[in-house]
């Protein structure tokens, strides 16, 4: 039931190639992660849309194998 942090990062970067991704394993159990994703692709999108893009990147794993992924999204500052 666990997923590796690098695997999550890889999946997010595959969907959002310009993204800066930081993954924290919150509980040390490979099951509760926090992801901070910074990407220009989020520009002009609502928070819900931004998070949906991240969820889409980790595909069906969110809510299933990946029990908890806390997401923070941001657009890069110029």
């Amino acid at each position: 039931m666990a997923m590796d942090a690098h695997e999550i990062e890889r999946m997010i970067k595959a969907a959002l190639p310009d993204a800066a991704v930081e993954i924290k394993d919150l509980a040390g159990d490979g099951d509760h992660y926090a992801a901070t994703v910074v990407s220009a692709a989020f520009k002009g999108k609502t928070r819900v849309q931004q998070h949906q893009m991240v969820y889409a990147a980790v595909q069906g794993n969110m809510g299933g194998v990946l029990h908890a992924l806390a997401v923070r999204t941001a657009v890069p500052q110029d």
Partner: protein
Amino acid sequence: MSDVNARIDAEVKNNDVVLFMKGTPQFPMCGFSGQVAQILGYIGVPYKGVNVLEDQEIREGIKAYSNWPTIPQLYVKGEFVGGCDITREMFQAGELQALFEEKGIAVKQAS
């Protein structure tokens, strides 16, 4: 529209503020649901809590309805606002209070 979708749609459209959650506003059964309930309580906005643990159909159906994989889910005036992370971020930035004001929903506490 399937049966469950129509039921969810009716909840979302007939109530100004709806929180699909695990447990009830008084007794949340999940930390994330509890956090959102606490924020809404703090702001002092009346809302309807829908306990997904009591209805397996809604528990699964709500995820498809919003294309959002997790619960809680907060809806304001028929619009999906977000889950726990987004609601908390918006609250901390004062955006949630502004959203209620913009949508004409009275809150007890001045923001």
